[in-house]
């Protein structure tokens, strides 16, 4: 019994599967970006080559850093992202679900961001600390609309468990088919954009001013873990959205094809938003999430309560 869950965590819906598909997703990201720029883009194995190369490079621990926190935090983030992926996939594929697992997933998905904040703070680099402070503000900004837009789905399904949400969508149509579902979906795409720290919300990483921000001091294997972490989150969050709003994913028969199509559609939407927007300032991001996005998510929740 316990060994089965170890297998789930490490091999199939967990680490290995999520890591490989996540890295392939970052390739989709780079390829679509390249096509938007009217160029060819990297080959499909590019993210794997990047990871392999980073694993072979020297690991530098800066002199002013706290070694344990600096090296441990990326691993904690990776473990949390993998766990979130495992819970969502088990609910989708094998209907393994428990009361309130959507709340658990919501909590676990903030851990990579918190780990990144702690790791950056431990690195002792002023730019990394500035990035960590921005990441913290961004976390406060997007969590509120994210939770409320998830509540829309939860209200309509009448339960916090993924299994009930999926069953509700199977019996009475997907959440995206209703007005409240569409509005909540739009809000959640924006929040996912910020959760992945993609442009327009790549404020903590800010290549041009902070030179990498939160992961400026990481090199070699820890950097590979951080890249893998981002890749896994890029995989988990669209699947999370599909589970909540679009009827979930399934590997049975032809539905494997529609599952992949749903997933790629959401990824491409995220990448296109990323490629057609400039970076906003942190105060603009905070105002955006606590203003229009909060209002929209509350409107979605009210519509759901009214039955639309």
């Amino acid at each position, binding site marked *: 019994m316990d060994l089965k869950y170890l297998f789930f965590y490490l091999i199939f819906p967990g680490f290995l599967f999520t890591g490989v598909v996540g890295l392939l997703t970052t390739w989709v990201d*780079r390829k679509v970006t*390249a096509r938007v*720029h*009217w*160029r*060819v*883009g*990297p*080959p499909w*194995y*590019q993210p794997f*080559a*990047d990871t*392999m*190369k980073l*694993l*072979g*490079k*020297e*690991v*530098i621990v800066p002199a002013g850093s706290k070694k344990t926190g600096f090296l441990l935090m990326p691993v904690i983030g990776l473990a949390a992202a993998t766990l979130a992926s495992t819970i969502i996939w088990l609910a989708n594929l094998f209907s393994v679900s428990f009361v309130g697992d959507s709340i658990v997933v919501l909590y676990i998905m903030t851990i990579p961001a918190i780990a990144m904040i702690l790791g950056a703070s431990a690195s002792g680099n002023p730019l990394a600390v500035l990035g960590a402070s921005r990441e913290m503000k961004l976390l406060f900004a997007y969590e509120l609309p994210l939770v409320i837009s998830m509540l829309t789905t939860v209200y309509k399904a009448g339960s916090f468990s993924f299994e009930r949400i999926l069953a509700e969508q199977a019996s009475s149509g997907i959440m995206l088919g209703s007005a409240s579902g569409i509005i909540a979906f739009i809000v959640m795409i924006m929040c996912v954009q910020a959760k992945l720290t993609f442009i327009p919300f790549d404020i903590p990483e800010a*290549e*041009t001013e*902070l*030179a*990498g921000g939160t*992961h*400026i*001091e*990481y*090199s*070699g294997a820890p*950097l590979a873990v951080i890249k893998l972490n981002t890749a896994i989150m890029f995989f988990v969050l669209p699947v999370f959205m599909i589970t909540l709003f679009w009827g979930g994913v399934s590997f049975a028969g032809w539905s494997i094809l529609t599952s992949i199509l749903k997933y790629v559609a959401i990824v491409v939407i995220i990448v296109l938003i990323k490629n057609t927007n400039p970076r906003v300032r942190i105060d603009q991001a905070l105002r955006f999430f606590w203003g229009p996005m909060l209002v929209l998510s509350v409107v979605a929740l009210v519509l759901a309560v009214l039955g639309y």
Partner: protein
Amino acid sequence: MSLALKALKKSPWVFHVNTGACNNCDIEILDALTPRFDVERFGIVLVGSIRHADVLLISGPVTRNVLPRLKRLYEQAPKPVKVIVIGACGCNCGIFRDGYNIIGPVDKYIPVDAYVPGCPPKPETIIAGVVKVLNTL
């Protein structure tokens, strides 16, 4: 050839260092990274932090003020790291060789793997230089 080196050949991340150039070579380096040449096909990406770098693109002769920074940058880069000098000034001080603040070409202070001469070199030449360095791996 080890797997890590093979992977390094497929994804060299470049970091741009100006040690006192006139900015002309830097413009050409940025040109080489534009969509027209699309070096991301070969995994070449410009990174913002020296900790992520695999290849240092150094332009310009070494000035007295920049020497300690150049040495520190080289020490901060995680090994294995390759160094490519872009432009005539970095190779042999170019037109600045008689300057009062110039203390020599780059290879006098840190090991250099390739020289790309020219004032400034064309983007095609820069890419050819990078390819030659990668072929020595």
